[in-house]
């Protein structure tokens, strides 16, 4: 290894790595970020495929699935007709895969890993080997989840929430689910420690907390949520595993009779204990899904409106407040478990309070546009699309958060519509925005704008056609997780005709992902080459070469100002990078 004093050979300080060390068992945050990203995109597509299968059954209950139906075994779809067990497996695994193997790894593992060290001017994450361990633990969790489809009785089929006693007495797939979850939780815990230390310790000179890009703030708060919320679920997962494998009764009360036979267990446990432990994680988890998305949107809106974020500080304080509050709203998922007035009043109040910082952040984004010179490029379209879509997601949370209004809406399609608006046209649009935005940094090439816009318009229209009718079906009282979509019930009849249209929209949504997939791979090798700062952005990741070498920057940058100094009066150009030295 030859040391060089020249800055332009800075990258050569690192030894040349072999293929396995450079691309597979890498400790470089950028490679790990890309590994997370590609793996998560594959899982997102897989989770989406599970849903497309379910949508066939919902649109045409009990009819044989043409062409693809013959690919499935008799234990899942005999003669192409889906069995209820398989439908329940698909539902449980769709939720699990989308949340824990798709969106979180993409939002935190991929964007967090790739972008955070660059935005704070660091050469890498604080603990590179921990980072690699985090990815491979995630990968192992994913493999276990996929393998569970081969288990006797199929994959887990008790919902992504895995409520006992049903999950305690479920087929072997549930055991795989729990083991997979333990790997995934371990991965998130390792990652979260790494993010917290990196952001606190490795910020370059001059990058005070209030000069950090909003995205870094979002990742910091997210890391705290993961660190504090996941251990209870890990404990609960081990307890449920013991219930299943060692005949304990953490979640099983005395006196259960299943299909006519008394269950031979000691009893004395409580099914509600699981719900508390689960939602103590899973509510903060909702903010794990949404905060990085908000961070991405903040970056892109500031960049493409060519002006500073309006009310950056109030957005940051709201973010921190949101993080704290997210730990004391969990039981609003449990209003109908026999809750008294006092407890329900407490959780309704915290739920209404948590809506305020979300409103503040969304307001910051809306008002930031005022006075801008808005560039409608693909990443901006996705970021703008996020705003009204997340708006619908947030607003539909209000009736669910008021316990009296929740009575008829609880566990109906209204709930499904609500959280899909938050996560699909909300978070996913923001994640796509992030891919289009940071693609040039990762590859040195830019994705095609025209096909990006086709991808955007197709996706947003189809997503609304899928999710909006769910709100209507929910108001009509149709329960969620029904194998026939509610066809057994007379009261559901007036709203069931939406199901076919919703399913067609879901399949069309898949078609509109093709331009993205082709654009993505084509652009990696054949996309238009661009310089290191194609969007004329101010934040520090754009100071590094594209793609950044091992160690990231030519010289360690210094931050002289806040993150979004666009269109500064009197400045030569309409952006003043964070690390551009002030003119004397």
């Amino acid at each position, binding site marked *: 290894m030859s040391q060089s004093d020249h800055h332009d050979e800075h990258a050569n300080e690192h030894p040349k790595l072999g293929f396995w060390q450079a691309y597979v068992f890498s400790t470089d945050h950028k490679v790990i970020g890309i590994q997370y990203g590609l793996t998560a995109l594959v899982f997102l597509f897989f989770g989406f495929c599970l849903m497309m299968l379910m949508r066939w059954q919902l649109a045409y209950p009990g009819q044989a699935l043409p062409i693809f139906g013959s690919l499935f075994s008799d234990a899942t779809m005999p003669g192409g007709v889906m069995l209820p067990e398989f439908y329940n497996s698909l539902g449980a695994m769709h939720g699990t895969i989308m949340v824990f193997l798709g969106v979180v790894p993409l939002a935190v593992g991929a964007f967090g890993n790739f972008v955070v060290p660059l935005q704070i001017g660091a050469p890498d994450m604080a603990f590179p080997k921990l980072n690699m361990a985090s990815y491979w633990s995630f990968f192992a969790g994913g493999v276990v989840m996929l393998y569970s489809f081969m288990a006797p009785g199929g994959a887990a089929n008790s919902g992504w929430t895995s409520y006992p006693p049903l999950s305690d007495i479920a087929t072997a797939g549930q055991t795989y689910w729990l083991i997979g979850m333990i790997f995934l939780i371990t991965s998130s815990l390792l990652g979260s420690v790494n993010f917290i230390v990196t952001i606190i310790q490795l910020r370059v000179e001059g990058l005070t907390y209030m000069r950090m890009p909003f995205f870094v703030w979002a990742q910091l708060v997210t890391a705290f949520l993961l660190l504090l919320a996941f251990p209870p679920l890990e404990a609960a997962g081990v307890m449920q595993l013991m219930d299943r494998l060692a005949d304990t009764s953490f979640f099983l009360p005395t006196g259960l009779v299943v299909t006519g036979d008394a269950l031979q267990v000691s009893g004395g446990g409580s099914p509600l204990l699981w719900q508390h432990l689960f939602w103590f994680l899973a509510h903060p988890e909702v903010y794990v899904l949404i905060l990085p998305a908000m961070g991405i949107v903040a970056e892109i809106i500031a960049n493409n409106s060519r002006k500073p974020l309006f009310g950056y500080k109030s957005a940051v304080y709201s973010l921190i407040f949101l993080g704290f509050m997210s730990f004391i709203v969990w039981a609003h998922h449990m209003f109908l478990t026999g809750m008294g007035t006092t407890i329900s*009043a407490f959780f309704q109040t915290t739920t209404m309070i948590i809506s*305020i910082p979300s409103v503040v952040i969304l307001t910051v984004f809306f008002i930031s546009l005022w006075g801008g010179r808005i560039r409608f490029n693909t990443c901006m379209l996705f970021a703008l699309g996020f705003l009204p879509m997340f708006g619908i997601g947030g607003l539909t949370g209000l009736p669910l958060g008021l316990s009296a209004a929740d009575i008829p809406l609880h566990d109906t399609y209204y709930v499904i519509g609500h959280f899909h608006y938050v996560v699909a046209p909300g978070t996913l649009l923001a994640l796509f925005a992030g891919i289009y935005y940071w693609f040039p940094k990762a590859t040195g090439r830019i994705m095609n704008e025209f096909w990006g816009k086709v991808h955007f318009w197709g996706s947003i229209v189809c997503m609304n056609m899928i999710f909006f009718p769910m709100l209507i079906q929910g108001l009509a009282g149709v329960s969620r997780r029904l194998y026939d979509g509610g066809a057994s019930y007379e009261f559901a009849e007036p709203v069931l005709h939406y199901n076919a249209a919703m399913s067609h929209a879901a399949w069309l949504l898949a078609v509109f992902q093709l331009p993205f997939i082709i654009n993505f791979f084509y652009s990696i090798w054949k996309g238009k080459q661009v310089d290191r700062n194609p969007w004329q952005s101010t934040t520090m990741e754009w100071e590094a070469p594209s793609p950044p070498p091992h160690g990231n920057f030519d010289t360690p940058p210094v931050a002289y100002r806040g993150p979004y100094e666009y269109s500064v009066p009197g400045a030569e150009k309409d952006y003043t990078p964070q690390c551009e030295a002030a003119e004397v």
Partner: protein
Amino acid sequence: MDKFWGMPDIASAHGAEIDQLIGYVHYLMFALFIFWGGFFILTLIKFRGSRPGPANYAGAKGKFSTYLEVVVAVIEAVLLIGFSIPLWAKRVNEFPTQDTNVVRLVAEQFAWNIHYPGPDGVFGKTSFELVNNETNPIGLDRDDPAAADDVTTINQLHLENDKPVIIHLSSKDVIHSFGIPEMRIKQDIIPGMSIPVWFTPITEGNYEIACAQLCGLGHYRMKGYVTVHDSAGYQAWLDEEAALLAEEEEGDDFWE
């Protein structure tokens, strides 16, 4: 505003209040969405990139957004304190004590067992050790004197119009959720617990009980039926059941 946006017809006394709250919340949601949506579209047009002049570094002025946030917070507080909390208290704290019908409902994969106390108004003892899926799905102890006149039905709930009913919900196996959309009633049923709900049917007719919590492969077909009778009809049904029970007992005596 007694029927909001395709919600089912209301068939219980408290249903209108629930729907009123749902309606108000949705009006707030529409107002916010339309206001911000309008602002959004206007901003995108007004500040599109092709317009002349640079972006404005200072951005929007004034405190309008803060005022709007305060207004939203106040409306939410009113909905919470003025509507949701009192409505909830009525459902879970203010159970009627006199002139009510009381029944037990025991859920199982994938059926609703309903247990009526009979003329004596006292439920007979039950035990999970006595459960037999064919002959005694709820494990009723017929040796208990209070159980002699108890009536049980499967998947068919009979109610009396204009009279409050208290239903004690319990489950034999997994979590279920008891919901009757027209009654604006839903309650999770947690094994190991007995959770009461109450409501007053106000419209005679037939309704469906829908399970709302995933309870296994038959969740989708875990459907029950509700019949709301007038008082005379309800009494006639009770008499009919009592007569059937007496016949059965005579039969039993004969073989003993």
